[in-house]
């Protein structure tokens, strides 16, 4: 029983990471209907930025905020400089650009920071909080941070004019221009948000998996499964999907054997696509015809 509770909690913690990356995928998918395969590598690269800052003596939380902001800028710049020119290209070309970005950032990280595995600090204390036996402070902390990020995004999209404009631009770019929204910038902003969310996920996962250029490749796959499970156009669904995938993966890993962990993600992806392609919370829109 103890083992079960322990595995569920640590599943929730990794699930939080999947949830964040899934959220970043959803962010770009909503605006462009494309899955950004480079999302994980961007997160990894941002985590290296955080590592460098911390190495240079910047306090953890300052480095955290700085990294999230830099990752935001990086996302905006990538959209403006690299994705923009292929805006009207066929989907396959854009996907190739994403894969190119993946390879470039992976190699760039290896080249600049070397492939040696590096430890990455956790901002949370070593001892478990509240004297509990089941869950480490870092696990609890990263769950909390995922939830805070989600809440902030919810407030942003629901209650601010800019959030509304971003939703509008994603749904109907032509009409958005007709009310004066600068649609191109909304896409860039979406990339920026995705970059920042990914960076936070990277910083949360790095203490457990250690920092190295390939640390996000598996995570991206789980995140993709999470996003699909929750509904790839639903931010809330993506987060729930992330937690479900995290717990499921952990339980299968500990009770059926570690070899099956990655299979969980693949079975989920295929299963969702076959049974319910819109995912658990993917909106079924009502339109008049």
């Amino acid at each position: 029983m103890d083992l079960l509770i322990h595995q569920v909690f640590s599943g929730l913690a990794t699930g939080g990471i999947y949830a964040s990356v899934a959220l970043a995928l959803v962010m770009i998918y909503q605006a462009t209907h494309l899955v950004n395969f480079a999302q994980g590598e961007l997160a990894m690269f941002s985590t290296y930025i955080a590592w460098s800052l911390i190495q240079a003596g910047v306090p953890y939380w300052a480095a955290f905020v700085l990294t999230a902001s830099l990752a935001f800028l990086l996302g905006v710049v990538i959209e403006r400089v690299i994705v923009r020119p292929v805006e009207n290209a066929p989907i396959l070309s854009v996907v190739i650009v994403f894969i190119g970005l993946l390879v470039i950032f992976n190699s760039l990280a290896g080249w600049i920071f070397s492939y040696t595995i590096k430890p990455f600090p956790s901002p949370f204390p070593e001892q478990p909080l509240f004297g509990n036996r089941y869950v480490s402070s870092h696990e609890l902390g990263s769950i909390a941070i995922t939830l805070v990020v989600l809440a902030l995004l919810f407030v942003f999209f629901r209650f601010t004019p800019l959030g509304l404009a971003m939703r509008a631009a994603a749904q109907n770019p032509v009409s958005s221009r007709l009310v004066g929204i600068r649609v191109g910038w909304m896409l860039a902003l979406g990339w920026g948000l995705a970059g920042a969310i990914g960076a936070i996920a990277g910083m949360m996962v790095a203490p457990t998996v250690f920092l190295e250029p390939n640390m996000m490749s598996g995570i991206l796959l789980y995140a993709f499964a999470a996003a699909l499970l929750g509904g790839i156009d639903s931010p809330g669904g993506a987060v729930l999907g992330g937690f479900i995938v995290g717990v499921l993966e952990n339980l299968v890993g500990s009770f059926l054997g570690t070899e099956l962990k990655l299979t969980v993600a693949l079975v989920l992806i295929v299963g969702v696509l076959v049974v319910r392609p819109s995912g658990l919370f993917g909106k079924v829109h009502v339109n008049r015809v």
Partner: protein
Amino acid sequence: MAALLEVKGLQAQYGPTQVLHGMDFAVEQGGITTILGANGAGKTTTLRAVCGMVRTRGEISFAGQRIDGLATESIVRLGVAHVPDGRGTFLHLNVEENLRLGAYTRRDKAEVAADFERVYAYFPRLKERCRQQAGTLSGGEQQMLAVSRALMLRPRLLLLDEPSFGLAPLVVQELFEIFRAINVQEGVSILLVEQNASLALKLAQRAYLLETGRVVVSGSAEEIRGNESVRRSYLGY
């Protein structure tokens, strides 16, 4: 009266197909101008050209400033509101969010709040449905929403693309009365594109008849209404 919108030698094309072949027309400050013509004459393209949605050649001036070549969102920000063909509703947002988007470029919060009441006074039905997803509104209600969204910009010029399309005659009548009120009470100039010529000519002061991308007849609405041969050959009533 000075012209608010002045267009000279307007040409537009979609790919290799030229749709407009050098049009001249104007909308007076505070006036209503209508462009009439059959399907495929280039009416919708003309409106799209004015707000930079298609590539054009020729001169387009708004309030004395050249706007040809500007981005759509920049033209909108000058005070040109377009109620497009197909209404351009944000189907997955609710009515209130649609209206808030109409006022997206404005920073005068108090006046925006007052304008909500103003458009709800024109269209009480929208107020009843303010929380409803816009995609579930009836065609007439969506047209009301499109007009309201345009008004939320506080435009100086309103471009209306076949507002009567697909609506019941009673709804159309109501809508056109509101256009007149908007024009008279708020001084908004209107460029109206219509297939329903008799209706449009009653509302407008000036009219242009468009045939395959060229203006073939122009004059005051009254003249054109009175000219039987024009009516027979071009307007079909």
